[in-house]
């Protein structure tokens, strides 16, 4: 019984730790994105408040909280109020299965450095990322505005097409790790990260995950210069803030996913495992910010055609090739 209590307390500690780290990382990722984008466009980002703009996220939050929480007339009120929370919630829940360090021994028992080591953790991540679209879609539909509806529909179509490619890119990883458990996938990359083993799958995964999380080369659902703000056109104040924070938590989730699935998780020389994990997550986040600074937005039909005629066939061929090679090695 005593060990059970310790387990519960430690789990709660891990939860609080992850919650705090992820939320503050999301807040500062906003600042980092603004500053990096600024430097890529030969300007300084926000640098007025605090040293180097370090207090900017706090000011943004204060601004968002004190703004009017506006509900459009004839909107579906409860759905409208409920949708932004759903986006942030699904993004936060994804962290439950991400292992950020090898198990450590504390108080005489082995403690896995993950909130919940599901043996189908990968499917859990996929499920949550596909549920994340509900917040966007319901918010866009409930706003009762054309632009929001267009944004919601684009988001739906984009998610449906790129989720397939994402799933196809993950199958080689599962094939070589022989498990859906994320901890075991990380363990299987102790010597060689999956990036080297499955470069094509990595490429497909990066592109489709960017499309699925609406990062900028693929941010058609919220394309400001075509459909105003897409699904969040009618949102203001902290509800918009929740969408916004959800997007950045999602960026960290993507970073964590790419890290554990392709970059070898916490494995790395010299530095402690948690540091390696953080470095890799932040590097992936930087790559996405970099892509935002570099790439123009394609047209929506170009995006869909690319997804269905390029990504998915390449994904299928990649699975077949990987399976053949693995079969040849094992036999």
């Amino acid at each position: 019984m005593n060990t059970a209590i310790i387990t519960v307390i430690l789990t709660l500690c891990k939860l609080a730790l992850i919650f705090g780290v992820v939320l503050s990382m999301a807040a500062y990722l906003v600042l980092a994105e603004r500053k990096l984008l600024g430097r890529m466009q030969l300007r300084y980002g926000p640098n007025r408040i605090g040293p180097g703009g370090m207090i900017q996220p706090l000011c943004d939050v204060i601004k968002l909280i004190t703004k009017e929480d506006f509900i459009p007339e004839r909107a579906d009120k409860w759905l409208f109020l409920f949708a932004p929370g759903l986006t942030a919630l699904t993004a936060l829940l994804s962290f439950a299965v991400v292992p950020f360090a090898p198990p450590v021994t504390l108080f005489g028992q082995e403690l896995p450095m993950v909130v919940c080591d599901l043996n189908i953790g990968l499917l859990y991540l996929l499920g949550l990322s596909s549920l994340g679209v509900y917040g966007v879609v319901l918010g866009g539909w409930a706003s009762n505005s054309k632009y929001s509806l267009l944004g919601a529909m684009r988001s739906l179509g984009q998610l449906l097409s790129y989720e397939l490619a994402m799933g196809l890119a993950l199958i080689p990883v599962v094939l070589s790790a022989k498990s859906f458990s994320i901890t075991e996938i990380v363990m299987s990359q102790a010597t060689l990260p999956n990036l080297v083993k499955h470069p094509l799958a990595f490429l497909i995964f990066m592109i489709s995950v960017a499309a699925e999380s609406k990062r900028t080369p693929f941010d058609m659902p919220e394309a400001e210069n075509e459909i105003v703000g897409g699904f969040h056109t009618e949102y203001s104040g902290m509800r918009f803030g929740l969408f916004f924070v959800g997007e950045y938590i999602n960026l960290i989730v993507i970073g964590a996913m790419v890290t554990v699935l392709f970059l070898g998780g916490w494995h790395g020389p010299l530095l402690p495992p948690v540091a390696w994990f953080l470095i890799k997550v932040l590097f992936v986040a930087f790559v996405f910010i970099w892509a935002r600074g570099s790439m123009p937005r394609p047209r929506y039909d170009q995006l869909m055609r690319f997804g269905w005629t390029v990504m998915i066939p390449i994904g299928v061929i990649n699975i077949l090739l990987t399976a053949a090679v693995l079969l040849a090695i094992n036999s």
Partner: protein
Amino acid sequence: MTLWRDIKGTLQPFWITLGYLFQKPVTIQYPEVKRTPPPRYRARIVLTRDPDGGERCVACHLCSGACPVDCISMQAAEDADGRRYAAWFRINFSRCIFCGLCAEACPTLAIQMTPDYEICNRDILNLVYEKEDLLIDGCGKDTQYNFYEHAGIGVANERGRNQDEYGPVDPKSLLP
């Protein structure tokens, strides 16, 4: 090779933005660093004096007529010697668009644009500039020009009494 071109076109922007990341930004940090605007920059409007120290403005209303946003208003008055001046002169800078048409319209070079762009204010009524706020002690851009040396000389006499001058037209008369 369109595929090669596409791959190159996808990767090149990444290289360029990475290069920009390590360059010094071109931003001028405004409150600490201030640019000197060029001399012909159009910002705060002033009323200038001629080299003798008299007001150049003759209250002809041309500036107020040229102003597209109607932000200039004045009332004309006459001296004892018949020299016209503005009894009051008002520019509402909260409406002014700094187009410079008033300065172009001015026949006496009285109204001029200066490069002083820092005139914003928290109270909008502080942006209504009266004549005493507008009138400066210098000549502005042309330090030589004096309207009364070219026109209107000798207004000391009554109108129409000067040499080579017709009397004023009587608008009430039917004769040509």
